[in-house]
């Protein structure tokens, strides 16, 4: 297993941290090493947030990802900040519902996902982060779909178990999105 790396970035409130945590949790459920490094500090609602996740079957050296192999940007300021940082040959996943601009880099693979529309169609408008999680799982192959579903189940817990079916539905919508289209 190679070292899988993800940086996810967007507005506070878009579920960026949850996206990253679920991805890391899925990795841990498969018995791997994983690190989840949040941007922390003075923050405000609507401000930017990001997190870095590493999953590997070997002990992880640096949890800091200045040049991630895979990057998710959920809003325009994040595209501006992180597009230049993606490792050459890496993947940039862009939430095209909120970002109308195109990426300028040609040495990376870009995937445009209308995540908000897909989430809305699948039944939960605010779950664009779960759509993107599906895309990340599909594009990286870092974790199995089953582990991802288990991570969502465990995170919701018993108290919020009623939201599990709708979350899985939204995840499937993400998984079914044609990432090469």
């Amino acid at each position: 297993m190679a070292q899988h790396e993800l940086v996810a970035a967007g507005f506070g409130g878009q579920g960026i941290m949850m996206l990253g945590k679920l991805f890391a949790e899925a990795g841990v459920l498969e018995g791997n090493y994983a690190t989840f490094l949040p941007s922390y500090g003075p923050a405000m609602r609507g401000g930017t947030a990001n997190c870095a996740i590493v999953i590997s079957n070997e002990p992880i050296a640096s949890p800091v990802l200045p040049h991630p192999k895979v990057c998710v940007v959920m809003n325009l300021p994040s595209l501006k900040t992180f597009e230049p940082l993606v490792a050459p040959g890496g993947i940039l996943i862009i939430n095209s519902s909120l970002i109308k601009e195109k990426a300028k880099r040609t040495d990376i693979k870009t995937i445009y996902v209308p995540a908000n529309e897909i989430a809305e169609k699948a039944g939960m408008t605010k779950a664009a982060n779960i759509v993107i999680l599906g895309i990340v799982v599909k594009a990286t192959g870092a974790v199995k779909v089953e582990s991802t579903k288990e991570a969502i189940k465990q995170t919701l817990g018993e108290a919020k178990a009623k939201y599990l079916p709708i979350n899985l539905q939204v995840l499937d919508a993400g998984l079914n999105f044609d990432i090469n289209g």
Partner: protein
Amino acid sequence: MGEKLLMKGAEAIGEAAIRAGCRHFFGYPITPQNEAPAYMARRLPEVNGTFLQAESEVAAINMLYGCAAAGKRVITTSSSPGISLMQEGLSYIAGSELPVVVMNVVRGGPGLGDIAPAQGDYFQAVKGGGHGDYHLIVLAPSTVQESIDLMQLAFDLADKYRNPVMMLSDGLLGQMMEAVEFPGFVDIEKLPKKPWAADSMQGKRSRNLVNSFDLLPEGLEVMNKKMWAKYADVEKNEVKFEEVETADAEYIFVAYGTVARIIKTVIKDLRSKGHKVGLIRPITLYPFPKKQLLALAENPRVKFFLDIELSFGQMIEDVKLSTEFKKPVHFYGRQGGMLPEPNEISEVMLKLMKEAK
């Protein structure tokens, strides 16, 4: 060892302390370690422990003094400015030879600074931040797992030497989540007894007295000598360090904590390009791995050391003293809570290697 859990660093140290037999926490909130007291506030009542948020750091450290004097395992967690406030208490605790564990999740300084990871508190931790002639035993974890693993050792060393132990962490280690495994619970009943504790008459005719006071210089000198005999044992017995790829290394990084992790990435990269680089990572900052550094310095193969810190260079003084100036010791650091990128460190190393040829 149990199952792997994804857990935040600050919470993991709380659980690790409980498993190490600690049932008492006194502290005062400060970012970036608030998840530790929050965790303890919820968890300690479940194990019949005591959590108390003090009115200040000064009060908290003196609560530790009292609890340790009563013979109980006790911890506080704080971050740089809070730890500064605790220095008076730490000096008293060292002078009274009391075992406590203090976690410093270091943030940027000086003053109020910021809440990002930093290593500017090395001098304060290692050289004695309070008044008087004493040492803290200082452990520096570099992963969340190691923070857990070192916690039991911290309590054991504190008890063994009757001396405060500091875990020197940083904001990144406190805030990140990592897959971890916990050891089992220490049986508190089976911990070594503390016949010196001021907890009761213990069936004797006279009370135990715990203090750091002797008005007569003759008496105080005896006490100082006793403490320093103890530190000699600590230096002899308790040095811990990690070496990475030093067996054939010509260029040696020296770093601790979070920075050492970043350097492991650098080493992978430079090794893949054929450069013989290695790392020595002190795990105990006091006692410092002097002998191991000297042995590397005396090895004709080793060309130089490159010390990397999140400060303008504090540990480097110990590196230079340990290596007795037998090889050059270079420095690179970032400050203010900034982290160096692996590429940045590689470039510094490659430039120095070129100059050395």
